[in-house]
Structures are given as C-alpha cells and as structure tokens.
C-alpha cells in the first residue's frame, strides 16, 4: 500500500519532505522501465548522418561563439539588404506609382459630323458593346492624375458666336460634375474674322484645372491667358496673362500645358507655345516659347523664347504637342530621321531646352524613305518601344536616361508567320493604288496607325499592328503577338484585316482591335474584341456613325492616361497579370492548284501548326494549344466583296490529326480570296487565308470542237526592259493540251476581233490594244515604266455583246 500522507510536518519542512517522498515513489515506479542498449540501433543512423556532418560552412566557424557572430553578421547583411530594397521600392513608387491613379475600363471614341462640323465623344464600357454618348462639340478629354476626372473642352456655335465651355465628368460614372463657360467669341461666317478660333489646352493637378487659351488671329498677336479653376467645383481661382514676347510673331497652333514636379513637393506649370510669323496663316517657320510658373501663385520662374534647336537633326518643333515622360522631367516625340530611320527628340522641362535627339537606326538606307512605325511605353513609363513592322525591327529606349538600349529584330515579324499573308489586292485596289502612285506619293502612305502598340499589364506581351509592303505602300495586316522575353512573334491575329487602332482592357484579358470602314459617305469603326489568353473572338461590332459622319479616334482611358502622364494607370485592386498565354495552333490554309481554269477541281487544305516550328500539331503536344474545331469551312470570295461575300461554305473534313481537307469546283473566271474558318463549340472562331495568295481562275471558252480553250499570255522579250517597247501576245490554246486553236475551229461565242490589255503595277497603270495577227492570236506593243510585276487584265466583248474581263497573267519589268 502506498501512503503519501505523513504526520503533518512543520510548515517549512512539509513541501520538501513531500517532494522527497514523491521523488522516491516516482523513481521506484520507473524501475519497470525497459533496460536496453540503444546504441546498436542508433549506430547505423548516426553513422549515416555523420557522413554529411558537420555542414561544410560550419567548418569555417568551429565554435558556437563564432557561429553566433557569423549568424549575426549574415542577419545584419540581410536586414540591410531588405531595408535597402524597401527604400528603393518606396522611392520608385514615390517617383512613379505613388501618384498614379486608377482609371475605369472604358473605351472612348470620337466622331466628326461633316454637316455640323463638330465632333462628339461616346463611351463604351470594356467588355460590353453598349455605346453611351457623352458630349457633343468636343474631342478626347484630359484625364486627371488620379484618373477620376475627365475634362472636356466643348465648343458650340450659336447666334453667330462660338461658345467654349469647360466640362468635367466623373470618369467612373460618366456623369457631368460641373461646367463653366471659358470663352464667347463672335463668329463671322463670311470672313471667319476677327476670331479664327479660340485655341486652348487643359492641364490638371490634384486641386486645380488649368486652361491656357488664346484667340488665334493671323494679323494680331494676342496674349495667352491661363486660368486656374477649382477642380472640385469649377470655380475660377486665378488668371495670368502671358505675352510670348517675340517681335513680329504670334501664337499659332496648339499650346502645351503641363503640371510638372519641381523642387521638393512643389509643382510648376509649364506652358509651351508655338509661334508663327505675324500675318502668315500657314506657319512655315514655327518657333516655340517656354514659360514656367510656380504653383499655386503663378509666379514666373523661367522663360525661354525662342527655344533654340539642337545642332543635331532632326529638329523639334511644336514641342507642346509632345508626350511627357513618367518622371515629368521631359517631353519627347518620335520623329523621322534620315536616312529613313527614326529618332526620339527630347525637351527638358525644368530648363526649357531641346536635347540632342536619340537616333534609332532601323535599317533605313534611303533619304526621306518613309518608315511606318508604332510606339508604346512600358507600364512604368521608363521604356519606350518603337516598332517598324515593315522592317520587323524594334528600338528600345531608356527614357529617364535618354539612351538607346538596343534595336532588336523581331523574329517572324516582317516575313509573316504561316497563314499570315495578306490576299492580293483586288482590281479596284490595284487601280486605285496605281492611280494614287502616279499622282501623289504622300497620299499612298496607307499605314496610318492612330492607336499605339499595347503592352500587357504583366509586361510580357506586346500587341502590335502588323504590316505588309514597304514604305508608302505598307498596308496594315492583322495583329502581332510578340513575346517580350524572346522578342519573337508567337501568334498573329486577324490576318488579312487592316486594323488601325488597338486598345487593351485594364486587366489585359481583352484586346480591342479597331478598323475603319468607309462607304464613301460615312466612316464606321469595326471593333473586334479578342480574348488574349485564347485568341478567340469575343465579340465583333460596328460602332455606329450617322450618314455624313466619321469615327475619327478610338482610345481607352488607360491610353489617355499614358499619353498624359507617361505611364500606365494602376488597375483597381492592383495590377492584374494577364493570364499565361500559350500560343494556339496557327491555321495554315493552302489551295492546290493556285491557278486553274473554270470548272477544274481545286483542293483546299487547312493545317493547324505550331507557330514556332511550323509543324502540324501532334496529340498531347506541349507549348501550343490545340483544341480540335467542331467544323472547318472555306469560302472563295472575290476580294472586292469583302464581308458581303455570299459564297457557299465548303466543308473541310479531318484527313489526319490537325489537318482538314476538302475540294470544290473552281467557279467562274476571276481572282478569289480563299478564307478558311475554324469554329469551336464555345462559339469562337478563327480565320486565315493561304500564304500563297488568292486563287486565280482563268475563263475557259468552249470551242466548236467541244474542247475548252484558254487565253495564254506571252511577251517578247519575256521580261520587258523598262521604258523599252516590247510585244505582248495573247493566244487561245487548248486548256488540256496547250495546243493552239486549230485553224478550222472557232469558239462557240466567236473569236474577238481584238483584245484590250490593261497593265497594273504599284507604280501605275497602262492600257494597250492587242490586234488580231492570226487565228486566235493577238498582239500589240507595250512599254513598262517600272521594274515591277505588272498584272495583265484582258477585256473583250464576245459575239453576244457580253463584256468579258479577267486577269490573264503577269509581266515582270526589268531595269536596263
């Protein structure tokens, strides 16, 4: 029996005695514990561990004291590194993102009404197709630094007067906040005098809206007036007058107004005014003047008038129409620089001086050669990308340091990926381009990009408009998806389409591709939304424009913000990275043969290939996304019919994995664009055209002997020398054997007495008559005036009075 209770001890001795007894009891209770030698069991594991111990770094610090010192040192270094990183991070944020606002995911478009001679702005919330009219008599607004305010300059005409009003809108709700009249000028329709126009521009700070404006008059120099309005209420706060102070000159053109950081947390207001010679309406000798005012009192801090040009070409005029850098220290613009290259010109905002331009050699070699380009800035505004799609070259510029980082050749950009070629131009296009080339070369610059390239929020993808052709003949051709880590084109969207503006949703998930469409009376915008993660078409819509009006510009609020503040706004809730992009299999259509006679069978094939390797996809292939389409169809359409083509789709059936094939009978004579479209179960679809170009179908003429005859072209010499006369011959031959039309055989509809031959090339057009020189043989003199490929189009009237016209072949002109 156990009995721990003992006769009550003295107060002090009791716990010690009880502890003693407990200790003895527990000790004896532990005597039943196993008695085992654990070492034999531990030895193998210990031996194994000992083989790797002590860790090599402890060998250098054998004692624990030394290890403590070493750990403390490493900890201090780590803490210092973390502190330095945090400091740099917050410093960077202070310089860029700390004042960066957020903007709603909204697209704006402006339309111009020819009759009212007025522009209006409408909005479309990204992800929807709903258009909300905002304001008439205005153009794109200025957005505030926090992205919450849109300020429009509205101009209306009433009772012979121009009324200019400043109108502020909430960018999220698109509800008007306030409006204040800023100018009321008489308007004389007959002379358009004395006031030609009230020219104005707006800049916004955290608490003020600044408006700089003047009345443009050819024969009078008026001061520029700067007015400060309360940002919240629109109440007028201060007004300053600025005399440009250049004798014999007047303000001419738009003025630039920028709120820029100055010393410490102070801000300055910079006004840059372009001046022209008094009395000369066309400002052929622009000179810029620079003024810097201290805020908020408006005290003049600095004046540079005129601003001196840099000694290095190209010059920098109209400085006030340039973009600021993200740090607010510079204005910059991309200019053309000879020979056929680009340059970035910089204007130093604190000092009011033009800096030496930064030349970007993009492979140009010929003076005054036109190089179509697009530009974009990185999300932090530190890097400028200039892309020349016709040359496939991209220049990267470090904006804060005004340094050309490198020029990279974008793989596959200029050459085009499979399925990316643009279809050959239609007859109308060829005639138009030829005539335009003869008349005015400037008008032939078809590569007119209004929208900039787009950089994805995660900085991984660059979306750029692709182009085919060169220089003035360049034509937009779909959208390139460029991997910014490898500088390779990983996909090409909407090949064959001619987009001119791009916008990206704030989260980077949707790319909006805009193309103008004109019916000669009005110009509408065809807007397509593409899912950037899958490249599937999300929606496609036509932005309405009334008769006589034109959609003139298209932009996201984020783009407006970038243009104004040099960097991307923050996305509400933080930057959301775009979904990882796995390039989808490219569709490569082909048609075989590419030139046939009417009635022949043609085979159309669509191969789904890895865009990187060009190989047909294989089951389970990694790095490329291929979901078998639910159907694949092809259409043969005359190019001039465009989207209005009513051709019956030809169904292509799966031949092997990733390859679809079908055949059809070649239709009547003509040139046909073959377009293959793959459809998926979710309603998305993608289209492509063969890289080999359109299908040319020669007309076949029925002979009295029931044979089919076609017209065969030849020339003497086979390749005519430029500006030297040559002989063009057209001969009816058997479509199957190639034998000439027998002497005793005629065509069912009779042989034409003569043929009209029209020759088309980018340089121009030429027409000749081919006289009959034998049975079914016609010839005539031709003279080509450029070393290009000339398309020969034959026309004649048959015995039934029917005009028959078709492209019969090509002639290659060669230089002397």
């Amino acid at each position: 029996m156990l009995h721990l209770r003992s006769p009550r001890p003295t107060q002090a001795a009791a716990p010690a005695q009880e502890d003693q007894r407990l200790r003895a009891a527990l000790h004896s209770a532990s005597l039943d514990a196993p008695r085992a030698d654990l070492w034999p069991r531990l030895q193998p594991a210990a031996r194994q561990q000992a083989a790797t111990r002590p860790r090599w770094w402890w060998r250098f610090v054998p004692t624990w004291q030394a290890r403590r010192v070493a750990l403390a040192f490493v900890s201090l270094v780590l803490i210092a590194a973390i502190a330095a990183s945090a400091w740099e991070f917050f410093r960077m944020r202070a310089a860029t993102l700390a004042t960066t606002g957020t903007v709603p995911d909204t697209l704006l478009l402006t339309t111009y009404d020819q009759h009212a001679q007025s522009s209006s702005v409408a909005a479309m919330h990204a992800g929807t197709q709903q258009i909300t009219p905002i304001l008439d008599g205005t153009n794109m607004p200025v957005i505030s630094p926090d992205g919450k305010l849109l300020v429009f300059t509205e101009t209306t005409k009433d009772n012979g007067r121009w009324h200019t009003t400043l109108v502020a809108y909430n960018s999220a709700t698109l509800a008007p906040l306030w409006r204040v009249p800023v100018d009321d000028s008489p308007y004389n329709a007959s002379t358009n005098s004395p006031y030609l126009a009230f020219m104005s521009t707006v800049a916004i700070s955290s608490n003020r809206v600044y408006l700089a404006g003047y009345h443009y008059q050819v024969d009078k120099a008026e001061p520029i007036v700067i007015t400060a309005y309360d940002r919240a209420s629109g109440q007028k706060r201060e007004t300053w007058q600025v005399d440009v102070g250049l004798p014999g000159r007047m303000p001419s053109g738009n003025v630039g107004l920028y709120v820029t950081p100055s010393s410490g947390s102070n801000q300055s207001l910079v006004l840059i005014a372009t001046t022209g010679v008094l009395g000369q309406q066309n400002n052929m000798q622009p000179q810029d003047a620079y003024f810097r005012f201290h805020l908020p009192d408006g005290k003049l801090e600095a004046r540079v008038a005129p601003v001196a040009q840099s000694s290095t070409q190209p010059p920098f005029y109209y400085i006030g129409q340039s973009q600021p850098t993200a740090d607010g220290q510079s204005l910059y613009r991309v200019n053309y620089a000879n020979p056929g290259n680009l340059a970035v010109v910089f204007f130093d905002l604190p000092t009011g001086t033009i800096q030496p331009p930064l030349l970007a050699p993009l492979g140009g070699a010929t003076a005054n050669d036109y190089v179509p380009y697009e530009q974009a800035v990185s999300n932090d505004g530190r890097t400028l990308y200039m892309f020349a799609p016709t040359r496939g070259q991209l220049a990267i510029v470090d904006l804060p340091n005004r340094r050309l980082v490198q020029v990279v050749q974008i793989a596959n950009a200029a050459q085009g990926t499979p399925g990316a070629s643009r279809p050959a131009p239609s007859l109308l296009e060829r005639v138009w381009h030829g005539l335009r080339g003869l008349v005015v070369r400037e008008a032939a610059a078809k590569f007119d990009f209004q929208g900039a390239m787009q950089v994805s929020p995660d900085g991984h993808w660059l979306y750029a408009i692709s182009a085919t052709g060169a220089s003035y003949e360049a034509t937009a051709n779909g959208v390139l998806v460029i991997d910014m880590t490898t500088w390779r084109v990983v996909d090409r969207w909407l090949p064959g389409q001619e987009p001119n503006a791009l916008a990206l949703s704030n989260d980077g998930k949707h790319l909006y591709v805009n193309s103008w469409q004109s019916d000669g009376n009005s110009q509408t915008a065809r807007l397509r939304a593409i899912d950037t993660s899958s490249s599937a078409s999300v929606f496609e819509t036509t932005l309405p424009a009334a008769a006589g009006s034109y959609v003139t510009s298209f932009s996201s609020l984020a783009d407006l913000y970038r243009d104004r503040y040099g960097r991307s706004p923050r996305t509400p809730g933080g930057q959301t990275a775009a979904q990882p992009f796995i390039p989808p299999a490219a569709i490569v259509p082909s048609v075989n043969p590419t030139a046939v006679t009417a009635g022949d069978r043609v085979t159309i094939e669509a191969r789904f290939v890895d865009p990187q390797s060009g190989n047909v996809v294989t089951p389970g292939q990694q790095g490329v996304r291929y979901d078998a389409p639910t159907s694949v169809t092809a259409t043969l359409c005359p190019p001039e019919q465009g989207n209005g083509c009513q051709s019956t789709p030809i169904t292509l059936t799966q031949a092997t994995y990733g390859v679809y094939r079908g055949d059809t009978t070649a239709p009547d004579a003509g040139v046909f664009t073959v377009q293959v479209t793959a459809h998926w179960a979710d309603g998305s679809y993608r289209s492509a055209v063969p890289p080999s170009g359109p299908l040319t179908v020669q007309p076949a003429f029925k002979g009295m002997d029931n044979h089919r005859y076609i017209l065969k072209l030849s020339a003497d010499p086979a390749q005519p020398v430029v500006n030297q006369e040559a002989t063009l011959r057209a001969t009816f031959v058997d479509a199957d054997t190639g034998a000439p039309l027998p002497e005793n055989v005629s065509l069912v509809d009779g042989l034409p007495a003569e043929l009209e031959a029209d020759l088309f090339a980018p340089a121009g057009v030429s027409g000749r008559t081919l006289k009959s020189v034998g049975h079914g043989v016609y010839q005539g003199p031709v003279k080509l005036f450029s070393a290009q490929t000339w398309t020969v189009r034959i026309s004649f009237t048959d015995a039934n009075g029917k005009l028959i016209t078709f492209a019969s072949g090509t002639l290659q002109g060669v230089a002397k």
Partner: protein
Amino acid sequence: MRGEGLGVRGSSGTANQTCSSGIVWIATEDGGGRDAAVQADEEQALVLACQHGDLSAYERLVRAYQDAALRSAFLLTGNRQAAEDVAQNAFLQVFRHLARFDTERAFRPWFFGILANEARQHLRRQRRQPTVAWSLSSDALDGACVDPLLDGLIRNDERAQVRAALAALGEPFRTTAVLYYVNNLAVDEVATALGCRVGTVKSRLHTARKRLRAALATQAAPGASNQIAG
C-alpha cells in the same frame, strides 16, 4: 544533489543488477541515470566532439543517458515498447540537431526537453490509433527486468499504482513532474526544457503534487503498512 548525482545515495542504496539482456543497470538516487564515467565538464566535451562528427563521443552520450531516457519515457508513455521507441527517436533527434546546439547551455535540459517532446508526439499518435491504449498495469510488464532489491521495497502493484496516478495527471503536469522528480531537473531547467516560464512550471508542479497526493491517497487502503517514506 542534481548534476553532481553520480554516486548512489539515499535509502535505495546502490543498485547494480544484471538483467537477462546482460546490460548493466546503474540506478542512482537522483534518477537521472547518468553514467558515472561522464562528468559535467566531460559532457560538454562530448557534445563538442559530437558536433564535429565524433561517433564514439556520441556513443558515450547515448550510453550515459539511455537508462534515464528509457525510464522517463516509460513513465511518460506508460508502455515499455513505446518507451524504447521514444528514447531512440530522442537520441536520433539529438544527433541530428546537435550541430546547432549551443554548448554554453546545459545539455541535460535540452535532451530531456527533446525526449518529452517525442513522448508527447507519441501519445498524440496513439490517440489517433485507439486500438493501442495506455498499459499501466503490471500485466504490461511481462518479461520485464525488475530490480529485485527495489522490488522488495515497493511491489509491482504498488509501482503500478504510482504509474496510474501519474497517468491520471494528464499533460502537461505529467511531463513536468517526471522532468522534475525523476530527471531531477531544477525548476528553471524544466522551464527551459518545456519552453515555458518558471512560474508556469511551479504552478504545474503544485497541481501535480496535489493531484498525485489525492490519487495515491484514494488508492491506498485503510491500514496500509507499506509506506514509501515516512
């Protein structure tokens, strides 16, 4: 007495007994089971040698602490097999983490802290396996190597009653009591081993003492004659 307790004192006297396994069992008054050949300063040298991968030093440490470890583990788990597993795991943990052990600190509380932790983990695993229960009765001691000298002092069933009372203590009082009474750690060393404050240890000891007293008094029948201490 602790720390220096290499001799054998007290009423239990010296107890050397060769068991069937042929292992020498050295019982000491302090219950620490420390090998008489390992002095405190030598212990530090052994730890340092172990840190440099000296297996013979580790072997000496194991042999010095294994008896105390097995007895503590037995009291903590109430199962002989579990005690061996726990003690073995504790030694492995010691060897694994010895490289980071600060030799300026005392090895003993650190070791028993690891052992207590291993025992807790074992019991936690046991709770998830209800088929294996605590075995505190003498039935669990079949084949046990029992010291006949002490057996004369306290019989098997009485020792079982003490273990039952210990088991009834529950955690964390059981571990605190074993570290204090069986392993003879000072209050501050128990606090170090268990990672708690000294006041907490004192409080737990007070509770443990009270519960043990109550439990053992309840088990004691009237007219008990075999008191362990007077």
